[in-house]
């Protein structure tokens, strides 16, 4: 395999005497994609911030192409050829693609004027070389999230990056857009670059990575070739205990309808949606990004205006003009964007858990703080939220614990129908299983669940029945017995 591009040995880092990383090891070869795996708190972020020169290490060595390096600033790492594409991108939306790529190092001409012709030309050449179909002159705000990521990749290469770190790059992408990204990763590989790929999605790791390294509890666990490891074995290494089953599913659907939707229109382009949901059932809603999945949820939850169609829940025809009506009709909605519309990040765990239940936790307009506290306590115990107390800000919790807070908020409203939009996005493997368990128990206890997911495995593992959407219409329905990835993709594309 020749000389490694990046070779890290015995990296250690402590915060206030507590080890966040002990013995971090990592070896990246040119022309390969190396998956960095681990749950939340495994030490991945600490590892990456040290490699990027954002934090100082306490001990250990980092070698690039055999030469020892020590970065004290992110710009040092960039100069040495290490670029990161962060989970949350921060483009300048009102500037062009070229301006974003050359931000802070614009080519200048006479009298210090920016040489736009050269800048646009260079940027376009860069994009074309990568076969990205993006114009250097288009505005960043007109691009999709996937295209923004491609621009970031181009930007990384414009710094002559040899090592490109991608942190959860697909967390905001749909399947089709993710494929675009994977094609770009494959091209980077061809060019002999080394890619460090961080993702919670195992199917992606098995799809594009060549090698893997697992961290757990701040320690290096193992590394090897993806070809030599099974999915179950990898999960075991990440979670640290033998796996019983990835998808916990014990619910048994009944034939008693709880929700009947007929001829529903939404968002101007989602048309004629009809389906029935039964008590005890987990109904999967599958489709590509932009097929109208979330729009159906938004309509069912009263977040978008009535555009015709009937909704009957628990025998009652509903108008659902706003979320309040939906909540009192028994709906609960775990949105796709946890930070954007699920949590109040400025507030603590208790306030977040109580947020959808303020009416019942107060009398005559006055909050009953004892009732609030006991409600929060109850949910923290029921979901195993890991926090010393309920006055801790939710912004400090891990993705999995944050998602449990959102679930707790909705359980408190005692819903009959749970709408879950990408419930395990950005959540580590261990927390995923708990969310599946919660879902299953909810259905088993007489509730009904509709789950949107982009992960085929999750849909296959959890659904009793799947409705597939395409361009705002239902393109088919598949019963559990006939479920297969091929059947879903066939109907969705």
């Amino acid at each position, binding site marked *: 395999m020749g000389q490694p591009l990046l070779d890290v040995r015995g990296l250690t880092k402590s915060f206030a005497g*507590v080890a966040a990383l002990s013995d971090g090891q990592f070896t990246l070869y040119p022309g390969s994609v190396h998956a960095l795996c681990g749950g939340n708190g495994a030490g991945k972020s600490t590892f990456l911030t040290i490699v990027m020169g954002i934090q100082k290490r306490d001990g250990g060595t980092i070698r690039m192409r055999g030469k020892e390096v020590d970065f004290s600033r992110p710009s040092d790492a960039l100069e040495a050829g290490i670029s990161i594409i962060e989970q949350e991108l921060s483009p300048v939306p009102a500037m062009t693609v070229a301006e974003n790529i050359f931000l802070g190092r614009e080519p200048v001409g006479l009298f210090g004027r920016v040489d736009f012709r050269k800048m646009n030309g260079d940027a376009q050449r860069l994009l074309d070389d990568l076969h990205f179909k993006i114009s250097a002159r288009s505005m960043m705000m007109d691009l999709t999230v996937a295209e923004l990521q491609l621009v970031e990749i181009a930007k990384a290469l414009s710094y002559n990056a040899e090592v490109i770190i991608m942190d959860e790059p697909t967390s905001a992408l749909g399947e089709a857009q993710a494929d675009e990204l994977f094609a770009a990763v494959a091209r980077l590989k061809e060019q002999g670059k080394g890619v460090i790929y961080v993702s919670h999605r195992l199917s992606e790791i098995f799809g594009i990575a060549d090698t893997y390294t697992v961290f757990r509890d701040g320690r290096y666990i193992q590394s090897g070739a993806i070809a030599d490891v099974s999915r179950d074995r990898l999960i075991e290494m990440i979670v640290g205990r033998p796996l019983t089953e990835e998808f916990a599913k014990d619910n048994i659907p009944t034939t008693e309808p709880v929700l009947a939707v007929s001829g529903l229109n939404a968002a101007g382009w989602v048309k004629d949606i009809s389906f029935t949901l039964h008590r005890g059932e987990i109904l999967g809603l599958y489709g590509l990004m932009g097929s109208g999945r979330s729009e159906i949820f938004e309509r069912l939850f009263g977040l978008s205006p009535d555009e015709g169609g009937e909704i009957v829940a628990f025998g009652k025809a509903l108008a659902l003009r*706003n979320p309040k009506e939906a909540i009192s009709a028994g709906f609960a909605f775990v949105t796709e964007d946890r930070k954007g519309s699920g949590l*109040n990040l400025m507030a603590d765990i208790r306030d977040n858990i109580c947020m959808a239940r303020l*009416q019942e936790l107060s009398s005559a*307009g006055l909050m009953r703080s004892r009732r609030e506290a006991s409600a929060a306590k109850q949910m923290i115990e029921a979901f195993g939220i890991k926090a010393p107390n309920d006055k801790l800000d939710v912004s400090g919790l*891990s993705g999995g614990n944050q998602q449990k807070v959102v679930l707790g908020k909705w359980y408190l409203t005692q819903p009959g129908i749970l709408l879950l939009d990408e419930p395990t996005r950005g959540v580590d493997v261990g927390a995923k299983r708990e969310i599946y368990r919660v879902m299953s128990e909810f259905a088993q206890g007489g509730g009904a669940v509709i789950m949107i997911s982009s992960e085929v495995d999750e849909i296959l593992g959890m659904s009793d029945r799947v409705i597939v959407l395409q361009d705002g219409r239902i393109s088919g329905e598949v019963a559990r017995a006939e479920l297969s990835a091929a059947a879903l993709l066939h109907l969705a594309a």
Partner: protein
Amino acid sequence: MNTRPASINFQGAAAEYGRKYGILIALLLVCAVLSFLSEFFLTQRNILNVLRQASINGILAIGMTFVILARGIDLSVGSVVALAGVVSASLATTAATAGVAGAPYPVLIALMAGIAVGMAAGWICGVLVAYFNVPAFVATLGMLSAARGLTLLYAGGRPIPSLTPEYRFIGTGDILGIPMPIILFALVFVMAYIVLSSTRFGRHVYAVGGNPHAARVSGINVKRVRLAVYIISGALAGLAGMILAARTGSALTQAGIAYELDAIAAVVIGGTSLSGGVGRVTGTLIGALLISVVNNGLDLMGVESYYQQVIKGVLIVGAVMLDQARHKHA
């Protein structure tokens, strides 16, 4: 993102303590220093003077706290002070040429008119912000100009003098030796404290400011909450305007100019985040007192009033910088 280990809990507790009481400690320190520098500072008369000076700004700042907590800003309060002042004064004046026909009316009617004017101005701002998506800065900047213009039109550019003694009571009277402005300020504070800390509406204000999308999904009527905070701010500006007119004995058309800035300063010094969702009305109370104490102290030491403005500016920026540093640390 790990759960914090025990060893740094102490630091966390210290930071939490600082966040909660830092501004109070600053106020007490300033008071302690001033009591050494001036024997007059701790006299009963001076203390009441400081509190009375703080009361008008304090009442405005409490309204502003609601607005800022809900991710808004209200620049119109200074002009609303003047508008509510002249409208209510015109109902309570004995000067035949300045008042409306039939004046003076009973004091209660004049007071209710002033509050109503403030609420109306707040309602307009709130509707623009909540239902027409006009940025709060722009909507209330418009109201700042429009309300000042309406004040001048209504009063014909002249002050409205000769207010009835009953009306003047809210500015110059006292109960058991405590001046009325202080009593009203205290009442407003207690009510605001209860509303924000222990009512459902209070939770709604924090939720809307913290994350409007999440609040909406959780069944909170975000638009109505937004509207309500501007009405509250307007009503309190109306009250402040009447206290000011009552104290001076006549309603001036140029009253309240730049008062919005002092109100925002008190809120910010009190630790409320301008991006909404975080803050407490006790902080605002202390912020208003601190501004007043510092002004008073500089007066007592004979510092020129021009310097006072410079020092207030330093105080605002300093308080926010401290706040930022604490957040980074925590």
